[in-house]
């Protein structure tokens, strides 16, 4: 009897709940109408391509389409891992992204702290305004600027000539590809990222600074004991986010900076996908490489996030 009763009550509850849910949805049907176009967009342009990834496991035949092409399992992945390019691509991709992540991580923090400590409003605004201007410049313009600045009548060679030194061909030397890539990335992004840290610094409670002043702390001590620990969570989040792009480093910039002379260091997975995929139309093979890339970068992101959670209690989710 009692069991039955409880069962009836819980069934009643469930019924009520689902009725409540239906009522809620019905009452706010306009909200769902709002969501319809963006969600439809997501399904078509974001999720349908994910379904299309199966092309990586099939031998794509344009006449048959993705669905009817023959399954070949992991053979394209195997082919990629055994290909002569594999080692070079993986090495170039990892070195380039590791270098740019490590080199560009501390710069915006230093810039933000420095701007934060600057007591002249004019200087602060001028420096801030100028340093995040490059963020608006397109990759094509950035690379064009690099080409012009390093050209034989560009700023760098003019300066060398002015001091009586020999002209250099910077874009033609494969050794200068990585430094140029990393430095131009800092040049373009540091001011933008600094804004995020400045926001974090502005959120620090004044009481901390007042206490520090009373204790006679120097500026450097204030930075070390108050500023840095306070912006740590923000820094960790940004580091996690950048780790997600380890393998997806800015395709455009690498691609635009590539030339036959620096190919040995500038050929990365994403540019290889483009070359074998769209230039020589090996759709399945290149989709497999692309998927390999996506999966590993998602794994890196999740892994770094978990590590950050363990070590610093800060994480994306």
């Amino acid at each position, binding site marked *: 009897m009692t069991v039955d009763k409880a069962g009836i009550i819980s069934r009643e509850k469930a019924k009520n709940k689902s009725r409540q849910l239906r009522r809620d949805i019905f009452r706010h049907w306009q909200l769902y109408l709002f969501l319809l176009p963006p969600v439809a967009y997501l399904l078509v342009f974001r999720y349908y391509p994910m379904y299309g990834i199966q092309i990586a496991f099939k031998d794509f035949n344009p006449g048959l389409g993705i669905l009817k092409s023959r399954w070949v399992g992991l053979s394209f992945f195997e082919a990629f891992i055994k290909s002569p390019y594999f080692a070079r691509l993986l090495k170039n991709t990892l070195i380039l992204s590791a270098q740019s992540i490590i080199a560009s991580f501390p710069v915006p923090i230093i810039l933000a702290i420095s701007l934060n400590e600057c007591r002249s409003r004019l200087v602060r605004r001028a420096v801030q305004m100028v*340093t995040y201007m490059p963020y608006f410049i397109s990759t094509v313009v950035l690379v064009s600027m690099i080409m012009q600045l390093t050209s034989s009548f560009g700023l760098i060679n*003019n300066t060398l000539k002015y001091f009586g030194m020999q002209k250099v061909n910077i874009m033609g030397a494969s050794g200068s590809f990585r430094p140029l890539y990393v430095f131009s990335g800092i040049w373009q992004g540091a001011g933008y990222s600094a804004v995020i840290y400045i926001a974090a610094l502005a959120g620090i409670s004044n009481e901390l600074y007042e206490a520090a002043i009373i204790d006679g702390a120097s500026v450097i001590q204030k930075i070390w004991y108050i500023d840095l620990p306070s912006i740590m969570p923000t820094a960790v989040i940004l580091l996690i986010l950048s780790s997600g792009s380890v393998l997806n480093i800015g395709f455009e910039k690498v691609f635009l900076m590539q030339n036959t002379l620096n190919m040995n260091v500038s050929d990365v997975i994403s540019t290889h996908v483009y070359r074998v995929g769209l230039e020589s139309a090996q759709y399945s093979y290149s989709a497999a490489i692309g998927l390999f890339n996506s999966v590993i970068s998602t794994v890196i992101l999740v892994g770094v996030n978990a590590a950050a959670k363990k070590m610093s209690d800060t994480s994306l989710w």
Partner: protein
Amino acid sequence: MAKGKMRMIAADRIFHAFNYIFLLFCFLVVAVPLANIVSQSLSSPPAVYAGRVFLLPVEPSLNGYARIAGNQTIARGFANSVCVTALGTAISLVLTIMAAYPLSRKALRGRKLFMWLFTFTMLFNAGLIPNYLLLQSLGMIDSLWALMIPNAVGAWNVIIARTFFETTMPDELYDAADIDGCSDFGVFTRIVLPLSKPIIAIMILFYAVGIWNSYFDPMIYLQTQEKFPLQLVLRNIMTSSILQASMTNVSAARENSAQLAMIEVMKYAVIVLSSLPLLLLYPFIQKHFVKGIMIGAVKG
């Protein structure tokens, strides 16, 4: 301020001196290349060719700009970019706000699920080939729509806009509207939208910058020269001999260096032209831009 009047420790004075030097250094590192590019574009071709331009224009002239204004490919590229950016930004803005508003409402059942649908697209991307094949089957190859539709909604922007709505519109507002018998749509058009000017400005800026600056999508999806946006035209100018071909009046070998000099100046002018619209827009929306980054930073 009391803080300023405090007696300064000697170490602090040294710190501040170094700080100014560091900031000056940062300023110069960013400003010098920009100043040089602009000055080169405004200098006379012989001065550029002789390598005499550093921070200020030498023998100022607008020759380069006059030449590119008369160049059909560049003018058409500029027009294409303006159209695609304006229309694409409008589409993105509408879709993003339409997604962000309901997602900011606690009354929306299944909010978490929908949110995940958006967030997941930031974590995992299908990659180049599946996207390309999708557009191919939709007949969007070599169409300007390919530059506006496939990337119309950025999940990150949806999150920023949603956070804005959540923080500016209190729950009581919706309750009150509910009691007064105002529909969700009515609340949106009469209350939410008029209060959303800052977020709309930020979204316009983010999307416009993204579309104006994009290179990869036009490169892979467009084939017809007449449809190329400015970034693609600029790239072609930098890597090929489009400009040489447009110089019909010069053929004598002794005028070759004058021609090369002119081409150099035109390259600088196109570089400036390709960034000018955004840089002109920038001072007006700078305030919103900083705010936008901050909203994104607060709610990762």
